């Protein structure tokens, strides 16, 4: 009797895996430990793909874990009479459980290509809105000056305070001065490593106003944890007004030529 109970106990321990696993994911959104708010145009593609894979893997997870529990529960040597079933395998089953996952995985692979291409391959034909240059441990920003072109003497230099207009494509030119960093904007589902020696384009379209975190997601040294910036998404009008204010501030504090020297940006 005691041995029977022991087998049942262990089987239930294994059943706890799918039960608590599903419970964790079910509770997570209600305690706010879940995907942060998305304010981007392309983010819904990423999020819906996340949910799609979550459901797909969730079904497989529950099915296989429950099956494992059931076999442990049922085929306890103490409960069963006689010897085990002598079977070396099944050709049919092997074919079935090879073909079905293969087809599913292949579908998943093809299905996601479009979202990836939208975020990383179909770059909008436009001049950069802003250049972001990472360095230990801050985000240096360079906006085109009043002349509208980047790389001229009247460029605007800022640190950690990124502003971007909503409802239109923005193109960020991402660089690094020293080591690897990663430009992570959780609320618009953007992440891209900044690599010294490379100029990497990053683009997206924000849909909503608001201010959010810029996080560094690639280890860049002891101060990695504090490499924090803020990004503010605002209407075109507010963005233009903000730019105007910043132009004025920069012009008031220093002559244009000096501004270009100060920022160690090439």
């Amino acid at each position, binding site marked *: 009797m005691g041995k029977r109970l022991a087998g049942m106990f262990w089987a239930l321990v294994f059943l706890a895996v799918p039960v608590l696993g599903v419970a964790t994911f079910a509770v997570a959104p209600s305690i706010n430990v879940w995907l942060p708010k998305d304010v981007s145009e392309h983010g819904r593609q990423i999020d819906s793909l996340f949910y799609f894979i979550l459901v797909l893997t969730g079904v497989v997870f529950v099915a296989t874990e429950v099956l494992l529990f059931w*076999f442990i529960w049922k085929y306890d040597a103490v409960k069963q009479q006689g010897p085990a079933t002598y079977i070396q395998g099944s050709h049919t089953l092997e074919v079935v459980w090879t073909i079905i996952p293969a087809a599913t995985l292949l579908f998943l692979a093809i299905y996601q290509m479009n979202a990836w291409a939208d975020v990383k391959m179909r770059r909008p034909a436009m001049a950069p809105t802003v250049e972001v240059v990472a360095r230990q441990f801050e985000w240096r920003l360079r906006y085109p000056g009043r002349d509208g072109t980047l790389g001229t003497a009247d460029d605007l230099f800022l640190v950690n305070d990124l502003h971007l207009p909503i409802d239109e494509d923005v193109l960020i030119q991402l660089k690094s001065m020293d080591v690897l960093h990663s430009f992570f904007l959780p609320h618009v589902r953007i992440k891209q490593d900044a690599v010294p020696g490379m100029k990497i384009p990053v683009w997206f379209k924000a849909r909503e106003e608001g201010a959010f975190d810029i996080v560094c997601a690639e280890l860049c040294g002891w101060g990695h944890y504090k490499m924090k910036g803020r990004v503010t998404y605002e209407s075109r009008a507010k963005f233009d007004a903000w730019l105007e204010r910043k132009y004025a501030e920069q012009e008031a504090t220093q002559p244009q030529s000096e501004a270009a020297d100060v920022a160690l940006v090439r």
Partner: protein
Amino acid sequence: MTPPTTTASPAVDHGHVTVPAHGHAPHGGLSHFLSTYVFSKDHKVIGLQFLFSTLLWFLIGGLLALAVRWQVAWPWSPVPVLGKLFAQEGGQMAPEFYTMLFTMHATVMIFLVIIPILAGAFGNFLIPLMIGADDMAFPTLNMLSYWFMWPAFIAFGASFFVEGGAAAGGWTSYPPLSTNVASSPGSGWGQTLWLLGLTFVGVSSMLGSVNYMTTIILMRAPGMTMFRLPMTIWAMFITAVLQAFALPVLTAAGFMQLADRVFNTGFFSPEGLVVNNLTSGPGGGQPLLWQHLFWFYSHPAVYIMILPAMGMVSDILTCFARKPLFGYRPMVYSIAGIAGLGFIVWGHHMFMSGMNPALGITFMVSTMMIALPSAVKTFNWLGTLWGGRIQFTTSMLFAMSFVSMFIIGGLSGIFMAATPVDIFIHDTYFIVAHFHYVLFAGTAMGVWAAIYFWFPKMFGRTMNEFWGKVHFFLTFIFLNGTFFTMHILGAVGFPRRLADAYHYETFHHLQPMNAFMTWCAIGMVATQIIFAINFVWSMFRGPVAGRNPWNANGLEWTAPSPPGHGNFDYQPIVYRGPYEYSVPGADKDHLMQTDPPNAAAAAAAAAAH
């Protein structure tokens, strides 16, 4: 059941085998002691040397993990015990110390624990025993493969005490952070020692892998065809092949990084770097080159870190389900498939790196497909349990938990393989959850299954089952408490490797959850005290095991426990596959691989096909 001669004495004479290193006989006590226990060429002694060394490093790696978890849960609060050792102001850790901790936690666990405990400890101990050989093909190389670990132990160990501390560029050592001395305190001597340590681990692995391949190909007992090999041996064989082909790339890359640091060659640094306001290096290099070379080794290494555990778990599951392995050949082919595909998926670590996004798509497709052989293996393990007669030994509990946990680790991998989703979860706790499910909840649980299973063969005594089960139960609970929660933390985008993330508006509410995980991690490490005591106590006081305490059917169970020098007291001859459990018509519930065929069993086997 047991072979004809049952002399359990380890000093059994065996006329048929030539035993190397047995020649120089009476040499006095010390040199005998040295050649038997220290510079031994006996694969079993070398295996145990690997086992003891790696278990000690496992403890160190675990304590490093606790220190990491301490900082994540309660940033900047004084660290108990460790705070006094590496005193900062008030015993709190500095952020550079934190980066060093997680770098060395991963380094120790990967290079000094998982890889050497699988191939070094179990590969060494089991390969000759399970194929019916008296030792490895090259005993001296084998001895060297262990002793080359020592320079690595010393290099990694000493690096904690040099100026600037141990390496702090992450276990992946991405340049320029790792090559540019000005970029981080750990990029001084610590990083140089790290590279040296890595090289020595590589030499050790290479010596081992050459030996394993040769031994498995050439030294199988009569009748032991390739398709009669137990899964453990298949896994060890394919792991050795992976090592042999992937390691040279890492070694070369390591030397290039060393040259960048020592000779300023600039393989991995572009020109015009300005680090810490210092312009440095001639440039002309590419940081992404290192990532390609590093992952060309380190992705196959992921399989080096799991395949042997898969093999051992397959053998343990069949034994305690008293059933043949379901789909032996598909299991072999899927290991081979994993190994082959394993060479063309490395780019999935670089989706966000700046690598051509079109190339990212190819790596995404190959990565999706590598999930397939893992799925096939999982289904076959379930098939093995179906219709079995499960015996709830500690070893079996660990083996079944390997399957349960590997399902989680395998499925979570699909999220990262999906490139668009990876944009969000890359370098968050989601990936931390994923690889801990594969490497801790998977491999480490498999290793415990193997320790409880083969302990009687190693020491002639069995471990305590009651405390073994307590060890299993607590480890299982605490590991899920620690690691499962990481998935949802990753869903928030909670980044890894941050000394303090709570000053971000996005993450500031996650501290209580991290504190919970740290308490679970503390419980998990504390639980290992039970294991340590059980291990040491059972070595000397455990119940004496016969040759075959589990009624298993592999060749190792026909040898004495522990086997003497030369392993077998008679020449094993193999008549059948490794999983003949519950054969209909047989007079006992398992047929050893050495049991000659009889009419009834042959008829039943034919009927089953």
